[in-house]
């Protein structure tokens, strides 16, 4: 799976470092370019780590603001997308902790603007059975992801819903890549089994 950061960073790390430097100096245009480049990552991260009904746009905006205000803390050595994702993850954790909410992904009430799961199936003949199976698979995935232990859920969401690579996830969660792999394998094992069970 191609990472969001790679897809949206055609100019590479050097260019990004330059943008960060400019933004540190207060250059609004450079800051805007950086945000624009990574905003989908932030939307996807917050969307999957916050419960449905939470102010998603507010969370993303707050993440962006936190990032801009702490640009001095970015050393430039790591993955900028991972650094941004770390801010988003911490903000989501703060929000959940403050509200003492158990995070969940919508099971039976998908967002209105969600694409139909059938759009992603290879065949173009959506029989009623296939429709039902695809929806059940998506529901099973959301449900199982919501049941994962926190760290596994974060790793899974960052990998599959935001498209962050392993290095970026390690940076975002401040753990070793080996730890990311371990959590990812455990999460994938559980979620895949649930999805396959939902569509025998």
């Amino acid at each position, binding site marked *: *799976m191609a990472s969001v950061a790679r897809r949206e960073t055609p100019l590479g790390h050097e260019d990004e470092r330059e943008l960060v430097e400019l*933004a540190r100096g*207060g*250059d*609004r*245009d450079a*800051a*805007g370019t950086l*945000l*624009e480049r990574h*905003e*989908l990552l932030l*939307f*996807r991260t917050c*969307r*999957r780590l916050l419960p449905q009904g939470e102010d998603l*746009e507010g969370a*993303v*905006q707050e993440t*962006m*603001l936190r990032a*801009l*205000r702490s640009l001095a803390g970015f050393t430039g050595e790591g993955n900028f997308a991972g650094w941004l994702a770390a801010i988003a993850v911490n903000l989501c954790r703060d929000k959940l902790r403050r509200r003492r909410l158990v995070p969940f*992904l919508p099971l039976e009430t*998908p*967002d209105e*603007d*969600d*694409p*139909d*799961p059938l*759009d*992603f*199936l*290879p065949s173009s003949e959506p029989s009623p059975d296939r429709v039902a199976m*695809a*929806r059940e*698979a*998506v529901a*099973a*995935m*959301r449900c199982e*992801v919501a049941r994962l232990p926190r760290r596994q859920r974060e790793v899974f969401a960052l*990998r*599959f*819903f935001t498209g962050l690579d392993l290095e970026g996830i390690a940076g975002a969660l401040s753990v070793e890549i080996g730890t990311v*792999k371990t959590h*990812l*394998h455990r999460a*994938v*094992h559980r*979620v*895949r*089994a649930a*999805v*396959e069970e939902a*569509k025998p």
Partner: protein
Amino acid sequence: MTIRHLRDDELDLALTGETLPAEVAEHLASCLVCRRRRDGFVAAVNGARGADPDDATRRRVREGALSAWGGTSRRRHWARWVAAAAAVVVLSLVPLLRSHTVTPKLNTDAVLVEVDAVLAQDPLSAVAPEDVVNTIVPAPVEAGEGS
């Protein structure tokens, strides 16, 4: 000949994007059953991911963050330079304008003479009313009075 499909752990490796052993990768590429398992998972991921926000929403959120942060636009940089140049011009003109204005001359000698005259009469009356002066410095008692 029996076909060995991917075990669960091998499929998990494929899903996480790890490098598969050559024979496993080869089998996955050619086996419809195994590919369907993999593609089913990927389809569920894409369905569960949900739709991305539209451009207008993204722009609004981004601009909100930028406004709250501050920063300086390059266009604003130019505006600031122009404003600074205008301020320099105005400030440099101020002395010229002042030189043309007529300020009334203060006759300091006359004022000093007047102040000296008042102080010579009674230094305290220059700075305090008479009743205060009398309280602080009572009038001398004449001889024989009150004895």
